């Protein structure tokens, strides 16, 4: 250190700083992005839970369309509704099932309420924004798809998803990847056709259309029959809005929906940190160089004395 004069010091400091700045530069853009409201003409699905009878035809259709492995039980076997995973929770999406129907016995309701669970295809998906290999993509059609050929398997998307949707093929040793509903993008949505589950549903529980039209329809249904629905379209604003939205006659928090998610997309909770990154990259080198110069002032003075 003694031999280090200011010039060589600056050289070293700049080289280090430049290397890091190069690494961090791409992040600067992120800090400035504001909320993305979704593609204007993206498609969506309105799910009217009051209409679902729990026949699980959607599950069977999904299994066939997505070429998923044979289920553990037949798709007309109602015993799956009583299955409980850890914590007494109902079935959830898995690597073998991109959609599942859950049954809720609601006190005071004559019949059980059935709830279809699958990826909600967020406008600003948490999975997408958390992925460090950019595997996810929100298509203009509205689907959240992913490229399994680049998935490293860090599973941050599963941590980030507020709806607990992405599953992972843990059973594979060679090629484990994330598994989730892609709204039948490859086989249907891309060609303007509705997802297989929507088409298969006998009850037309699900309405497929442009998201903005579905929103109007949803509010129309509520105002037409105010007694038949709670006045809330789940997914209209949750975590920045989702392509899949829900109508129910039972308050959503009673049937397993998280009603505390807020209206901000998940990325907005991360932005404070992301915004700080370029600041650290810029300020730290100067700040600590200054500290160094100050704390070594005596050495420097001594050197100057020696020279003169």
């Amino acid at each position, binding site marked *: 250190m003694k031999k280090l004069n200011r010039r060589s010091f600056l050289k070293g400091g700049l080289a280090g700083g430049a290397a890091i700045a190069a690494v961090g530069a791409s992040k600067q853009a992120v800090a400035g992005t504001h909320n993305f409201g979704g593609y204007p003409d993206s498609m969506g699905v309105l799910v009217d839970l009051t209409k679902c009878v729990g026949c699980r035809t959607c599950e069977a259709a999904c299994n066939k369309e997505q070429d998923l492995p044979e*289920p553990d039980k037949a*798709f007309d076997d109602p015993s799956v509704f009583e299955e409980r995973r850890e914590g007494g929770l109902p079935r959830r999406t898995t690597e073998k099932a991109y959609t599942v129907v859950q049954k809720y016995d609601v006190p005071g309701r004559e019949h059980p309420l059935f709830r279809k669970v699958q990826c909600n295809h967020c406008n600003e998906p948490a999975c997408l924004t958390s992925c460090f290999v950019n595997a996810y993509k929100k298509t203009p059609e509205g689907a959240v798809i992913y490229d399994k050929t680049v998935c490293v398997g860090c599973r941050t998307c599963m941590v980030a998803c507020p709806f607990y949707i992405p599953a992972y093929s843990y059973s594979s040793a060679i090629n484990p990847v994330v598994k989730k509903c892609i709204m039948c993008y490859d086989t249907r949505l891309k060609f303007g056709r509705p997802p297989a589950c929507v088409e298969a549903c*006998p*009850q037309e529980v699900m*309405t497929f259309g442009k998201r903005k039209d579905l929103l109007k329809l949803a509010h129309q249904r509520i105002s037409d029959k105010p007694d038949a629905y709670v006045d809330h379209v789940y997914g209209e604003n949750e975590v920045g809005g989702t392509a899949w939205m829900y109508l129910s006659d039972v308050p959503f928090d009673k049937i397993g929906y998280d009603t505390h998610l807020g209206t901000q997309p998940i990325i907005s909770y991360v932005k404070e940190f992301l915004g700080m990154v370029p600041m650290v990259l810029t300020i730290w080198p100067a700040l600590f160089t200054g500290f160094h110069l100050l704390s070594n002032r005596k050495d420097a003075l001594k050197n100057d004395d020696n020279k003169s």
Partner: protein
Amino acid sequence: MGGRKKTLLGMAALMLLTAPLAAQSWAAEGPGTVELGSLANHYSAVTFDHAMHTGVAASCAECHHHTTGLAPIDPNCARCHKAGDKANRVACKSCHSDKRFSAEDLAKIEGNPLLHHKGKLGLKGAYHQKCLGCHTAMGGPTGCQDCHTRNDKGDAFFHSGKYTPAPKASAEHGGGH
């Protein structure tokens, strides 16, 4: 099943009350049975006993909305079709599309800004919501195969019947929680 019995009794009473009226005035206008098979895929076609149902329903409008010329039941329909607007064709499939979410149908809906019935059900949805809705309320049969038997293709689709998966012995099934 007490509730179900009660509704059945109520239905019988309703039938007794309306039977003489029905025989005279409007039941005769409808067909005897209808073969509902345009959507048959995993299930056989439904042979719908129209005559029997006209005997059960209080009014044609229960199923046909305003198209038979009777006052609609739903107050939301009555806002426009108060007196009933008779239509030339009253079959379900005349109004309810059998390709509800096809690009053409969606374009048709979007291309008509004055269209009120934007959320009109497709044919399959109309059938099932009407039939199952009423059957549930009245205590009629509600199982899928109570109305239409599933064919072999349907069994394969549902992984049921002879396609039922063998019960898994091991408890470890690809991540339970």
